[in-house]
C-alpha cells in the first residue's frame, strides 16, 4: 500500500535505520574481539578530544562538502557524475600549474588565480563526459569513472616523471615542490579559511538550486528531458552550465586541498573522497544544507577511524566499513519511507 509518510515519520524511519546500523556495526566489532563502546568512545575522542583533532575533522569535511555540492548539481539533473575524484585532481593540478607560472605573485592575486585555473580545468574535464553524452549517448557514469583514473595517473606522472616540477630537495623519493607561503590559504579562527568557503558555497548552492530559474530548469531536466524541451528550456545549454559548475566545484575542492593541506600536489591527496562524496550527496537527498551535515558526520567517522589506528591499533579501514554499513541500512530504509506496511489478519504484507 502506498501512502506518503509525513515528514516526521520519514525522519523517524531514517533515524531508526542509522540506529540499527550502529547496532549492527557493534556486532561486527564484537565479532572481531573489540569492545564496541570503547571503539565509539575512541571515535568521539579522536574527533572532539582536542582542538587539533577537531581541526582534522574540519579538514576532511571541507573538501567532502564542496565535492558533495558539485555532485549535487549534476545529480539533480540525473547526470551521474561519478567523476568528482578526477575533477578534484584536475583542480589540484591546475592550481599547482598557476603557482608554477607565477610563483612569486602576491597572495591576493595568486590565490584567486589558482581558484580560477581550478574552476576552468574542472569545468573542461567535466564537459568531456557531457559532450560525449549529448553527442553520442555515451554513458556518463562510465566515462567519468574512467576519467578519474586518467586524472590520477596524470598527477602521478607529474610527480614521478615530470622533472621541472620536481622538488630538488626531495631526497630519494620523487616529490613535487612545496608551495611557498603566498600560495597557502590563510587561517580563520585557527582553521584554514576553506571552512568558510565551504559554508558560503552551501548557502549559495542552496539559493541557486531552490530559488532561481536555473535551479528549477535543472530539476525539470532531471525529471524528464521531454518535459524540459516542451517547456522551452534550452536543454543542452542548461546541461553544459550545470556540468561545468559541478566539475568546477569539485576542482575547487582539489585546489583548497592542495593549497591548504598538502601545500603541494600529490597523487594520493583525495583519499577516495570523490567516491565518498557521491554517497554523501545521495544520502543528503540532493539538498546542499543536508549535504553539509552528512559530510560532517562522515568526516567524524573518517577521522575517528584514523584515530582508532593510533589509539587501538585497529586499521583505519574500520571507519570505512562502519560507514558502508550505515549507508547500506539507509539505502534499505528508503523502502520503508516509500511504502507503508500494512499487516492484515493473515499476517501478509500489502
Amino acid at each position, binding site marked *: 500500500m502506498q501512502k506518503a509518510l509525513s515528514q516526521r515519520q520519514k525522519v523517524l524511519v531514517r533515524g531508526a535505520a542509522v540506529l540499527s546500523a550502529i547496532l549492527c556495526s557493534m556486532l561486527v566489532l564484537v565479532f572481531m574481539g573489540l569492545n564496541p563502546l570503547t571503539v565509539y568512545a575512541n571515535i568521539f575522542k579522536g574527533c572532539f578530544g582536542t582542538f587539533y583533532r577537531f581541526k582534522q575533522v574540519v579538514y576532511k569535511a571541507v573538501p567532502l562538502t564542496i565535492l558533495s555540492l558539485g555532485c549535487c548539481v549534476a545529480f539533480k539533473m540525473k547526470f551521474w557524475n561519478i567523476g568528482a575524484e578526477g575533477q578534484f585532481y584536475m583542480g589540484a593540478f591546475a592550481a599547482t600549474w598557476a603557482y608554477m607560472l607565477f610563483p612569486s605573485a602576491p597572495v591576493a592575486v595568486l590565490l584567486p588565480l589558482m581558484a580560477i585555473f581550478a574552476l576552468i580545468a574542472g569545468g573542461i574535464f567535466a564537459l568531456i563526459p557531457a559532450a*560525449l553524452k549529448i553527442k553520442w549517448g555515451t554513458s556518463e557514469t562510465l566515462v567519468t*569513472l574512467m576519467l578519474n583514473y*586518467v586524472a590520477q595517473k596524470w598527477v602521478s606522472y607529474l610527480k614521478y616523471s615530470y622533472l621541472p616540477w620536481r622538488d630538488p630537495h626531495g631526497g630519494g623519493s620523487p616529490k613535487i615542490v612545496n608551495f611557498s607561503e603566498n600560495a597557502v590559504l590563510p587561517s580563520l579562527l585557527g582553521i584554514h579559511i576553506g571552512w568558510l568557503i565551504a559554508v558560503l558555497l552551501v548557502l549559495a548552492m542552496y539559493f541557486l538550486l531552490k530559488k532561481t530559474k536555473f535551479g528549477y530548469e535543472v530539476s525539470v531536466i532531471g525529471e524528464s528531458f521531454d518535459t524540459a524541451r516542451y517547456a522551452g528550456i534550452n536543454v543542452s545549454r542548461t546541461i553544459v552550465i550545470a556540468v561545468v559548475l559541478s566539475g568546477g566545484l569539485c576542482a575547487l575542492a582539489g585546489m583548497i586541498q592542495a593549497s591548504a593541506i598538502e601545500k603541494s600536489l600529490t597523487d594520493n591527496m583525495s583519499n577516495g573522497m570523490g567516491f565518498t562524496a557521491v554517497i554523501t550527496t545521495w544520502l543528503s537527498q540532493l539538498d546542499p544544507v543536508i549535504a553539509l551535515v552528512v559530510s560532517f558526520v562522515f568526516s567524524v567517522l573518517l577521522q575517528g577511524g584514523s584515530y582508532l589506528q593510533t589509539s587501538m591499533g585497529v586499521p583505519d579501514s574500520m571507519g*570505512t566499513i562502519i560507514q558502508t554499513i550505515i*549507508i547500506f541500512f539507509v*539505502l534499505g530504509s528508503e523502502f520503508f519511507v516509500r511504502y507503508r506496511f500494512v499487516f492484515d489478519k493473515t499476517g501478509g504484507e500489502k
Partner: protein
Amino acid sequence: MILSFALFLQVAVQTGTHILYGILGGILFEKSGQTNLGTEGMMLLGAAFGYLAGSASGNPFLAVLSAGFAGSAGALIYAFITITLRGNQIVTGLVLTTFGTGVASFMGKYLAASPLSASFKSSFSVISLPLLSKIPLIGKMLFEQGIYVYVSLVFAFVLWAYYRYTRWGLNIRAIGENPAAADASGINVTLYKYIHVLAGGFLCGLGGAYLSLSFVGQWQENITAGAGWIAVAFVIFCTWSPLKAILCAWAFGALNSLAMKCQSVPIFGHIIPGQLLDMIPYIATIVVLVLMGLHFKKENQGPASLGISFFREER
C-alpha cells in the same frame, strides 16, 4: 619473432583473465536487469577471502570456493537492498565497492604477512595440452595456460549456451527486458534475479582471486587496481554477449601487456613514462564507449529494464 609473439599472446590472455571473470559476472547482473557498479568491490572481497583461505588451508579448491562465496556474499547484500527493498542500484553498487575495498584493506595487513606456499601456487601454474600447445602462434595462447584460464573459457561458453538454448536463460532474458510480462507468464522474478545476481557475484569473486592466488601470487593493497570498473564498461562494449566478452578481455590484456612492454622500449627515441602508458586502458575504454554510441544498433542495446526496480504491485 613468431615465438615471441606467441609468448606475448599467452601473457595477454593471462593479463585479461580477471577482467573476463568480471565481465561475465557483470553480464549475469545486467541480463537480469540489475545495474551493477559493485564489481570492483566483489572482486576485492573474492581476492581477500580467497587469499585468506588459501594461505590458511593450503587447499586451492577451498581457496577458490571461498573467493566465489565471498563475492556472492557481497552480491547478496546488493540483492537484498536492490531487489527486495528496491533501493537505488547505482548507489548500492558504489557502496558495495567501497565496502569491498574497506574489508580487503582491513584484512590486508594480515594477508600481506601470510604468504602462499609454493605447492599451493604450483596448482595454478600453466598446463600445456599435448599436441595442441604446439600449434604455431595460437598454441601457447589457447592451450598452454593455467587451470584458471581454461575455466574462464568454460564459463564463457556455458553462459553463452545458457542464454541461448535453455529455458531458464530465456526466462531471465525476459525478466531483463520486461519483468512485468515475465511475471505475468508465471516466472518468479525475484527468485530468478536473486540466483543470477548471486552467481554474478560468485564469478566476480573468482576474478579477484585469480589476481591474488595466481596472477600476482601474493597480497597487494588494492590488488584489483580498477579492473572491476573496466569490466563494468566492457559489459556494454561486448554487448552483453559472453563470447564477445572473451575477445574484449583478451584485447584488454594485450593492450595492457603492450603498455607494459613500452615502458622499456623507446618509441621515436623517447621512453614514454609508465604513468602515461597506464592511462591507455582507461582512455581506450572511453573510445570504445564512444564507438558503441556511433554504431547504434537495436540488437546491441542492453536489457530494456536495466536499472529499474520491479514492484509487482505497481503495475
